[in-house]
């Protein structure tokens, strides 16, 4: 299990490939299913063109909450391994914001655990987004929507 907070842009495919490679001796042949979610910055939101975003977090608490969330998922589903990567700092449209990858034996567990982690991250991990609009106005996002709706 690994949780990474990145202040620089990250390549999700590279992150997953490296992580899977580093865990290969333990995982090879053992997992049948991998579910991956990637959240990417869009260039529009609520009808406005967005130029960029600043992502603030609470160092220490962010990691602590993400560890709890991953532990909760691992208690509910037979998870073999998990990787969570989240950007902070200044972000441009089309850059990845979050990566969740879950390795399991069976596909249902991979989907369920990955979605659980994403929903819990959205509602409990202390990150805050401030958008910079094309109009130069800045605005804090007020609330994440529920992804199960």
């Amino acid at each position, binding site marked *: 299990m690994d949780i990474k907070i990145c202040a620089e842009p990250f390549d999700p495919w590279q992150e997953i490939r490296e992580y899977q490679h580093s865990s290969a001796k333990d995982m090879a042949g053992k997992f049948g299913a991998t579910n991956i979610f990637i959240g990417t910055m869009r260039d529009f939101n609520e009808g406005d063109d967005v130029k960029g975003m600043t992502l*603030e977090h*609470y160092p220490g608490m962010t990691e602590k909450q993400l560890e709890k969330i991953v532990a909760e998922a691992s208690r509910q589903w037979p998870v073999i391994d998990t990787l969570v990567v989240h950007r902070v700092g200044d972000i441009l449209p089309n850059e990845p*914001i979050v990566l969740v990858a879950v390795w399991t034996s069976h596909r249902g567990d991979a989907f369920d655990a990955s979605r659980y982690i*994403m929903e819990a991250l959205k*509602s*409990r991990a202390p990150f*805050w987004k401030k958008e910079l609009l094309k109009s130069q106005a800045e605005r804090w996002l*007020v609330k*994440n929507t529920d992804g199960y709706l």
Partner: protein
Amino acid sequence: MSIKVRYFASLKESVGRSEDNLEFAGLATVGDVWRRANPSKALPNNSLAAVNMDYVGLDSAVKDGDEVAFFPPVTGG
């Protein structure tokens, strides 16, 4: 007792600072900490609070050395 108070995101901007170091006796709860640090400002309704990086309610107890944080709903992911 000594309490470190931290503020994040829009709440940090509206209180105008990122942290306080309180040195007061008689701070029993998280709510007390807010009122002592921000006597003229009510905590916005939807705010969240944490003690030592765990979520807590405003009536949760605090003790000497705790780090108490206040922040708006989270919007990561």
